[in-house]
């Protein structure tokens, strides 16, 4: 194992985050605060509580998940796409590093950033609403599992993308709608019957539901299913990455 290489890449990725601190940290904090103002105050004044939880507190896990998903994907996809775009990827490909090491370093870097971000949003949220975390261990577990899974997913997009447009396509057209329709801002019990069923096919629902359970002990679907779905998605991503690396897909061709 070339641990020095893993460390070098990881350090470089983290340095990039701190260099672009405005984009990486400040802007998500501002947008989260805006969600609180708009959803928490404006809509929250009409929906006072869901499942016995005040609306402001109810949306916190969903908001964190929203940022965690989008940031994990954009961090990881950009991290591997950019060297491909400018050509500096030659160095990575000519270095004595295995695919596993490349993944651990890039996905580790991207996941670390989004976990830090998730915690910052959590801290920001605690300024607006009173929060309780009933299952801190599971809260962290969901945070890490989701960050890693979607960083892997972003990594795949970054390798697949041949243009900046393609890089934005999947997050914009698939992930954002799924997140908004995944029960971040409402309980799926509030939906009419047919839409409730449709929502059950949305993988993001399981992430948000499980994550909310770790805060308040209440969820739309059972915690076991939430955890299972998250792990399944992680395994799918790992399988795709393994295939990419075995064939050199869009990297060594």
């Amino acid at each position, binding site marked *: 194992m070339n641990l020095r290489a893993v460390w070098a890449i990881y350090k470089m990725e983290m340095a990039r985050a701190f260099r672009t601190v405005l984009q990486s940290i400040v802007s998500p904090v501002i947008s989260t605060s805006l969600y609180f103002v708009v959803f928490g105050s404006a809509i929250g004044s009409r929906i006072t509580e869901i499942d016995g939880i005040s609306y402001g507190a109810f949306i916190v896990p969903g908001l964190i998940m929203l940022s965690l998903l989008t940031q994990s994907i954009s961090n990881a996809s950009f991290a591997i796409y950019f*060297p491909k775009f400018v050509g500096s990827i030659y160095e*990575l490909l000519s270095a004595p590093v295995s695919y596993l090491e490349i993944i651990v370093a890039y996905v580790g870097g991207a996941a670390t950033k989004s976990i830090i971000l998730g915690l910052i949003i959590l801290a920001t949220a605690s300024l607006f609403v009173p929060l309780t975390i009933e299952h801190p261990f599971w809260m962290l577990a969901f945070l890490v599992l989701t960050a890693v899974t979607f960083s892997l997913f972003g990594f795949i997009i970054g390798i697949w993308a041949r243009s900046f447009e393609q890089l934005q396509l999947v997050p914009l057209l698939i992930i954002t709608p799924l997140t908004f329709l995944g029960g971040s801002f409402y309980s799926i019990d509030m939906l009419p019957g047919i839409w409730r069923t449709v929502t059950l096919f949305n993988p993001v629902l399981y992430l948000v539901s499980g994550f909310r359970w770790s805060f308040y002990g209440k969820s739309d679907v059972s915690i076991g299913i939430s955890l299972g779905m998250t792990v399944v998605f992680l395994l799918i991503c790992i399988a795709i990455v393994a295939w990419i690396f075995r064939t050199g897909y869009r990297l060594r061709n």
Partner: protein
Amino acid sequence: MPSIISISGVTKTYATGFKALKEINLDIERGEIFALLGPNGAGKTTLISIVCGIVNRSSGTVTVDGHDISRDYRAARSLIGLVPQELTIDAFESVWATVSYSRGLFGKPANPAFVEKVLRDLSLWDKKDAKAITLSGGMKRRLMIAKALSHEPRVLFLDEPTAGVDVELRQDMWAMVRRLREDGVTIILTTHYIEEAEAMADRVGVINRGEIVLVEDKAELMRTLGRKRLLLELRSPLAAIPETFSRYALELSPNGDQLTYTYDNQSERPGVASLLRDLETAGIQFRDIDTQNSSLEEIFVNLVRKDA
């Protein structure tokens, strides 16, 4: 000693069906400077990319110091430094950070003293905190070299190292290449500046349309394929070359004051001495006389043309 790089039966067909390399066999000797010449699109960069692990080959085997580049890629790649043709650097990193990163990427422990030495050797030391994006083109080129040297490679690939580089930097680079060779580093450079190969290389390989058409010791190549040219500045211009000189196949300049006689070492054609005697007999006097060796460039152009 066995060769440091051994390429056998390597082919590359891209997904588009384009055959970039057809059955390449090539051995690079330990410690030599090998120049790989070829026109644009001949397959130079593809071949280098395969050896360095950037592009997968379609078939064949490559070993670096006995290590197979697929089975034993870690050992093989850690011996190689690559300076690609394009200036591709993470623009927002400092010189120091990006060179240190390269060293780490190749699994070498941090060694600030060594990185400092590399930067000083390449006149980059006073730019160590500058971001790559602020460097001039020549400086960026040096930075690429610094990155490649940061992990103390035993084999250095220079892909078109002096393309678009000014004279001073080119001289510096040649001096650096010679220093590295003295330290035992094997250097493979691709170029289409023939003068570069002529000035630097121990051996020359010519690649054209994905095939190695020639590998030869440079001096030997110049000797066997080289032509010589005798230039005679005439005292008074000639209207035409006299009939009696037809066997020399002389060329007369348009204004009639210069005669050119081209000959080579294995030539059947009569020698210089007899030409001079015959000129004297014919009463053609000359002011000055000069001989020229043909350059590698002409040799190269002839080879590639013949092949076309």
